[in-house]
């Protein structure tokens, strides 16, 4: 698509990440705003998809870390009980 196609599409679909201005937006609510926007522009769609992939990887590794952390403690508790 050409540049003019992209910009007219952007106006038509009004990506929340692009049109939102002013102080009501911040680091705390921006991600939720983008996720709830049904008309993400190409650029924001790419960012959201990449960040979501990264976050789910991180979530998985956090769960693994927790298991590793919990295991020795449980082992200790068991040996105290006996």
């Amino acid at each position: 698509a050409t540049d003019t196609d992209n910009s007219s599409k952007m106006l038509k679909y009004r990506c929340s990440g692009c049109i939102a201005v002013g102080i009501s937006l911040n680091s705390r609510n921006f991600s939720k705003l983008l996720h709830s926007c049904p008309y993400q522009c190409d650029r924001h769609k790419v960012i959201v998809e990449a960040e979501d992939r990264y976050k789910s990887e991180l979530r998985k590794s956090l769960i693994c870390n927790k298991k590793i952390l919990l295991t020795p403690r449980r082992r200790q508790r068991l040996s105290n009980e006996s």
Partner: protein
Amino acid sequence: MFQGQCGWFSSSVSRDLRQFWVAEGGTISDPRAADFLFSCDASHPDTLRIYQSLDYIEDNATVFHACYLSAVAKAEMKNSVALGHFILPPACLQQHDEV
């Protein structure tokens, strides 16, 4: 413009931009309490810590490039700058953004 807003600044952000934030009424706080997270370098250790935080994983923390502040400083209508154009994703994702 930033009256009543708390901001966290990575040490990769220049002093000028920090001073602009304060001059516009913003305050500076730690990353957990801040409404705005600003960095100029996604691979800086203090910014990496944000990307690994629970807030970030749970979609409660978006890091913005501090260029936003210089764009606001230059803009005639300070309210007209779209914050959304200054998202700073983790460094490992950034090659994908250059579409």
